[in-house]
Every structure is written in C-alpha cells, then in structure tokens.
C-alpha cells in the first residue's frame, strides 16, 4: 500500500518495479543502540520492494495463494489488492552486547538479513 501511494500517480513500466531485494543499511549507532550493542555497529539487512503483478516470475517463488490473488488483481484491481513483496529467506547475524547485568553476551539473532524476496 505504501508503495502504491508513493508511486500511484506515476504511470509507465519503469515506475512499476518488480519485487526484488533492495539495500537497507542498519546503523545501530544512529538508532541509539550503540550503548548496549558492542558489535556489529552496522550491517546490511536489505529489504524487499516492488510490485507483485501478473504474471509472477518463478524466481519470486509465489505461493499458490499469491498466484490466485495476483490473477484476481489483474482481472479486477479494485476487488483484490496485489500479493505482497516480502522476504522469503532470512539469515541470522551474531551480535555482541551488554545485558542489563553488565555482562557481555554473544547472541545469534535469527531472521536479521533478507536473503531473497518473493510474492506472498
């Protein structure tokens, strides 16, 4: 929805970017979390952006539901929104931080980096 509102007034194929992975650089220092996160202070998280319109490409690994929803959207955009461009594979990152007791902790946080995007 956000994508549509931002780009809704634009027309033409160039503005209708296909669902794909885009950079999202996270800087914990800018978030104000560097008081408790020791490392890393920044990392590349990526994000998914773009439209899932008909016909869906196979590399987007659409679910059956997404295929049906996309088909219905293509037939009647007013009745059904397009399927969503979302992360389909995420990987963890290691974080070294200081906990509430001032202990240094290593933790592997799951699902922190987008590896691939798809339509769901």
């Amino acid at each position, binding site marked *: 929805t956000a994508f549509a509102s931002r780009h809704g007034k634009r027309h033409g194929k160039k503005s209708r970017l296909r669902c794909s992975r885009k950079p999202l650089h996270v800087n914990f220092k800018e978030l104000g979390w560097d008081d408790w996160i*020791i490392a890393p202070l*920044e990392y590349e998280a990526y994000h998914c952006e773009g439209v899932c319109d008909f016909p869906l490409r196979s590399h987007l690994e659409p679910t059956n539901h997404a295929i049906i929803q996309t088909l219905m959207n293509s037939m009647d955009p007013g009745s059904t929104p397009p399927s969503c461009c979302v992360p389909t594979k995420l990987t963890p990152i290691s974080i070294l931080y200081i*906990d509430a007791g001032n202990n240094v902790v290593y933790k592997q946080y799951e699902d*922190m980096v987008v590896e691939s995007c798809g339509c769901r």
Partner: protein
Amino acid sequence: FQQASISSSSSSSTELDSTKDVGNRKEGKMQRTPQESAEGRTPPEHGLRQKDLRRRPPGQHQGQEPPGRGLRVVPHEYMLSIYKTYSIAEKLGINASFFQSSKSANTITSFVDRGLDDLSHTPLRRQKYLFDVSTLSDKEELVGAELRLYRQAPPTPWGLPARPLHLQLFPCLSPLLLDARTLDPQGPTQAGWEVFDVWQGLRPQPWKQLCLELRAAWGELDAGDTGARARGPQQPPPLDLRSLGFGRRVRPPQERALLVVFTRSQRKNLFTEMHEQLGSAEAAGAEGSWPAPSGSPDAGSWLPSPGRRRRR
C-alpha cells in the same frame, strides 16, 4: 549511561575496529571531554532522562541502574574471539551453532568474577569465585557452562616436590566435585587458562548467585616413582593457590575469572523478546523504558498511552 569498549589490541578485523570508538563516542551531538570518555561517565546535560529512556538496554528498567554504572564495560578477549569466529563463519554460510565449541548454543553469556582475595598471609588453600547470574533466564535451555581461570606464571623454579597436584572445583559448601585438573609441579610454568566444566553446578536453575570453590591438594606418588619413595616419607609443604598463580590481587580485567554460560533459546522473534522485556518493565512500573530511535521526535511519549493501546 554506560560504555562498552574494545581494547586496541583486541581486534584486527575491520568490523571490530569500527566498534573501538564506542568508548569515546559522541553522546547525541555533544562531544565528550577526554576525561568523561576515559571515566565512562555521561556528562551532565539536559535531556539525560529522555536519553536514558531512549538508550536503555532491553530489560533494564528505569531506576534499576546497572551494578557497575559509570564503569567502563570492557568485553573480555574470549567473548570478542567468540564473536569474531562465529560472525566470520556466518558470512561463509556456516551456522555458528554447528561449532563444537559453541555446544550448539545460540547465546553465550559471560560473567566476570566478583569475588575478592583473602588478605590474610596464611596459605590460600581454597578460593571462592562469585558470579551474579540473575540475568540468566530459566526459559532458555542450558547446554553448557565453563569456568575459565587464568593461571599466572608462578615464579621459577617452583621448588615444589615431585608429586602430582590436583586442582578441584566444587560448588561452595558442597562435596559435589564438578571438575578437576592435575598439574605437574615440575612441568613448564607457562601462564594460561585452566577451563573447568561447571555445567552440573548450574543445572538446578534458577540461580541468583553462583559460588564456586577452587581447592588444591597434593596427590599420591605413583607406585613406579621409586626415586621419590627412596628418599623416604616426606611431608609436602602446605599449598597456596597464590603461589600456584591463582591469586586475584593486581590482576588486569582480561585475566579475571570468567564464567561462560551456553544457552539455547527457542525464541526466534526479536519483537517477542522486546515485548517480553517491555512487559517486565511495565510490571515494574517503568513503562516506556524500551529505547526508541534516537531520532524520534519525542522519545518520552514514544509508547502509546494505555488508552491508545486499548484502542489499538
């Protein structure tokens, strides 16, 4: 409100190098004075309360200051090494939990010894190590724990008899032997880490404090050591853990005893974790303690009012 720093010798990797400035970073837009940076203090400035709200670590409630507030938190070399090894493995697509050293844990917490040396001059035959493990959650599966003791190089030559020397580790006031090591008094006198498995000592959770006791004892001579036996029955001198390199006075932070606890959390969701931390903060009457982004217009009102939450 507290600082983390990595000593200059700790890392050569670019990633960790970028963290070195944590110890003398800017606070918002205000540059710290060198003295403030060195002592790890937050300069008295307006908006401190708001900043505390924004920058408090998860689970740390307003009014609940960390025990070492104002002190610089220096990550132990061992923890830096764990981070470096596993984060590099991750980048290569290897899951850190596959490493045998990780004991298939996804969380490794280090606790620094809070015990103090007995100042008496009598031989130190037992040494107690104290750890505040109250931050350990009983919701996480404990998969391992080890006590790492740095043994300073004893003066050479030792001058100790040629019989084995046993180091034994017990929970305080308990006869349960957790782990043992045998030292050779005639062997090389290199400094290094002695690692004891203390998993059994931590298993009956939950703990608030963990007290472990190191004891030293002479072993029996081997039956084949005829030379020593021929010299007749000789009473070994009383053992002193200080002379064995386990004294705690005048010891740099990197050489302090470290309890390393390996846990495996089933929680995969950062939001769930945040929510639980926030819930515990609210239970303690400290709503709004979760840090909002520093660029947010009003961190104090970052959280919705109870009425707004109900509507939501």
